[in-house]
């Protein structure tokens, strides 16, 4: 049954990072054969959902240092500053490259590309394509990628493991969904561009496909996961669906109101309530602080009770129909469609929602992981430019900058490698046998996938949410371990080969369980509060002990073991995070 194919570089993932990397390889080394393997058609990748914009210095009164400072202070000094310096320098170039490729950026009346304000940024520097920025970026990249003949796509192939031999990653094993066939795709280098893992939580802005597969693949192959305790809650998600209302809504001037119609953020050291938006202040503060303020407000009994738990109101009415239709058409469409609310005349109920993973596979500035031949870029990776809290609109440019870098580095590395070893085939056959034994031909099985997934999501939400404590995290770690045991007794209704989406759900769940365990473990061991990681039992930041990245390795027993690595500080020594002053 096993099929084999071979390329120079295999990319796992066809989102923003993967496609940017594919094009970078084709441009740097047109003779290399590149494979883009993706579990969904590339243009379905979750980059498509990004709304607000992409940051890159553009105006004369802005500077690279300002963007760097905003990013580093926003990340509560956990960012590697050498990485941030590279990032802010290359972001505008990459965004302009997208302009040349046809991205429909929103424009000023004279034809120049327009920029908007965003949370935590002290200057206006966020490029946008109305409020469907990610959609336009992804389709531009995808359509542009079609012109490179050296790129072969494996659409709707699910990667189940990395092929490692002699300490070197030399390809992947993938299931072709339409047939259920197992395929070995060998390569001289592999780049993981698999995105984040928001689905570990129940209430999230993340699509069904964001299940941490790449993180689990790397972790199982011996690469460390970095800063996994840092999970971003976005302050404004629609209740029930978790659909995101972009930060651009606040950047255009939206207010966050509690049940008394009061702009409560002024009570949380975020500045005073001015009628017009003020940069790095109030509604334009960083996401971690805004989400935390929501919980405090809830504790004071000042949130609004809704059918899906407490909410606050996002008020855009004073912006007027013209601004809303021109700058936030998608926000209006989503509200009308999913909440039957018109933001021109009504307030929008919102609550914090799991949105983004700051942590991920540890890489250097070129996307290289400590495992030879393995690279990572995009949300799956942790370089780290996001530290303890990502600033809105920094992720899309990160995909471009580090996708391109990883692509070029992997191309250079691949050019010097020998063809992959013959006996990799044996590993692929093992993997095929494992899938049969553990899932398709297994007898019995009592645990429904949905039950285990629900329990995992509940545990994470209760114990590893906006505020955490040592006690709750220890409980979570224990329960997650139990779920791992129960996973072995998983029940599948579908034993067929052809488009077996239930098998894929099971494989995704196993990745999520693995990733969830690392999150709980790191959160437990970091006994301080920093950025998005807030410990009720350790409320202060502790630079002496924890100005460090957590590095999680998988032990031979399959448990997470956490160590620490230093943070690179170049020009911005740790200081207090100041907003609204």
């Amino acid at each position, binding site marked *: 049954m096993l099929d084999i194919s071979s390329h120079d570089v295999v990319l796992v993932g066809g989102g923003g990072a993967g496609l940017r990397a594919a094009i970078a390889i084709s441009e740097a080394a047109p003779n290399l054969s590149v494979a883009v393997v993706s579990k*969904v*058609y590339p*243009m*379905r*990748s*979750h980059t*498509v*959902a990004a709304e607000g914009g992409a940051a890159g210095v553009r105006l004369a009164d802005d500077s690279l240092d300002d963007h760097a400072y905003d990013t580093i202070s926003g990340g509560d000094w956990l960012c590697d500053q050498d990485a941030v310096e590279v990032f802010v320098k290359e972001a505008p*170039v990459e965004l*302009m*490259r997208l*302009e*040349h*490729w*046809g991205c*429909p950026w*929103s*424009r000023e*009346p*004279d*034809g*120049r*590309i327009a920029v908007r304000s965003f949370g935590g940024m002290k200057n206006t520097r966020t490029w946008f394509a109305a409020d*469907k920025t990610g*959609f*336009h970026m992804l*389709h531009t990249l995808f*359509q*542009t990628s*079609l*012109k490179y003949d050296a790129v072969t796509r494996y*659409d709707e192939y699910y990667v189940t493991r990395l092929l490692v031999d002699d300490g070197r990653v030399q390809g992947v094993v993938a299931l072709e969904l*339409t047939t259920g066939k197992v395929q070995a795709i060998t390569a001289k280098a592999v780049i993981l561009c698999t995105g984040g893992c928001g689905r570990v939580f129940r209430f999230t802005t993340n*699509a*069904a*496909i964001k299940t941490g597969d790449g993180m689990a693949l790397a972790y199982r192959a011996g690469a460390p996961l970095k800063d996994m305790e840092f999970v971003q809650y976005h302050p404004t998600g629609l209740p*029930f*669906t978790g*659909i995101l209302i972009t930060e651009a809504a606040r950047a255009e001037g939206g207010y966050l109101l509690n049940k008394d119609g009061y702009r409560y953020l002024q009570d949380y050291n975020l500045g005073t309530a001015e009628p017009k938006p003020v940069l790095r202040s109030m509604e334009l503060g960083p996401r971690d602080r805004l989400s935390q303020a929501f919980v405090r407000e809830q504790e004071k009994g000042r949130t609004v009770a809704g059918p899906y738990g407490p909410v606050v109101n996002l008020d855009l009415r004073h912006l007027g129909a013209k601004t809303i239709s021109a700058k936030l058409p998608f926000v209006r469409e*989503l509200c009308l*469609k*999913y909440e039957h609310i018109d933001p021109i005349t009504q307030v929008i109920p919102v609550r914090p929602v799991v949105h983004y993973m700051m942590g991920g596979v540890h890489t250097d500035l070129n996307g290289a992981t400590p495992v030879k031949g393995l690279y990572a870029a995009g949300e799956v990776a942790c370089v780290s430019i996001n530290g303890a809290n990502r600033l809105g609109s920094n992720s899309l440019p990160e995909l471009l900058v580090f996708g391109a870098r990883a692509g070029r580095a992997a191309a250079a590395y691949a050019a010097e490698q020998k063809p992959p070893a013959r006996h990799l085939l044996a590993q692929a056959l093992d993997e095929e046998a494992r899938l049969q034994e553990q899932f398709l031909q297994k007898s019995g099985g009592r645990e*429904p*996938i*949905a039950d285990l997934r629900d329990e995992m999501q509940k545990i994470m939400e209760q114990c590893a949410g906006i505020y955490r404590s040592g006690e709750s995290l220890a409980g979570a770690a224990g329960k997650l371990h139990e779920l791992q045991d129960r996973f072995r007794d998983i*029940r*599948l*209704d*579908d034993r*067929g*080969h*052809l*488009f*077996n*989406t*239930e098998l894929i759900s099971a494989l995704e769940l196993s990745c999520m369980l693995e990733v969830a365990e690392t999150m709980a473990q790191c959160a437990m061991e970091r006994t301080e509060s920093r950025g998005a990681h807030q410990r009720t039992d350790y409320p202060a930041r502790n630079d002496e002990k924890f100005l460090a990245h957590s590095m999680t390795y998988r032990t031979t027993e399959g448990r997470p073991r956490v160590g620490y690595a230093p943070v690179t500080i170049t020009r911005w020594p740790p200081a207090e995070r100041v907003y609204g002053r």
Partner: protein
Amino acid sequence: MANRITLEVTRYHPAHDEKPRLEAYEVPLRKEWVVLDALNYIKDHLDGSLSFRWSCRMGVCGSCGMTVNGVPKLTCATFLSDYAPGPVRVEPMKNFPVLRDLIVDTSDFLLKLAKSKPWIIRKVEKPLDEEYFQTPTQLDAYKQFSMCINCMLCYAACQVYGLDPLFSGPAAIALAQRYNLDSRDQGAGERLDILSHHEGIWGCTFVGECTKVCPNNVDPAGAIQQYKLTATMEWVKSFVLPRGAK
């Protein structure tokens, strides 16, 4: 509102079914549920083997197109309660080969899309520190066609594509037109040669079904009409003008 509703869902597995059949499932009827939520309820609680595609659940990734009570729809943007008291019939999109249950093979579109050269074509490139100016009016000229999420509902609705699979189809033509109308592009001529040589484009009778079902108001029918017009003009020119004077 009754609190349950019946879904009649197409089930088909080529390994053991001769042809597709409908299977009924009763699911909770909740006012905030879309049809996709009901399908996920079936998969999670009633029958894990039901197969369908979905991802974003916010109408932007284009994965979840199906036929709901005979009409092509994004199931994540179609409310269950609009069909109360039911039953609601959920079938795969028409005009595509069915792989299994609600999953169809849309790979044909991907080939057609690539053929229509949906990327910027230019004779000379500016250096990367310069931008191509584009006024909001110039942006508006193609913006609508750039909103296509590739959901394939227009192909499912298109009578011409149903009869003549060689037809490039509404979305591929709309996307070609998206680049033709972009002030930064110079590739219209190249694309015209590819798209107008096949008669499918002439078969389109401007019934406009594609435009009606489009969840993003892309208006592919409009793109096809524009295309026909340009192609006709070029054809006329080739007679009236001497060779090479295009």
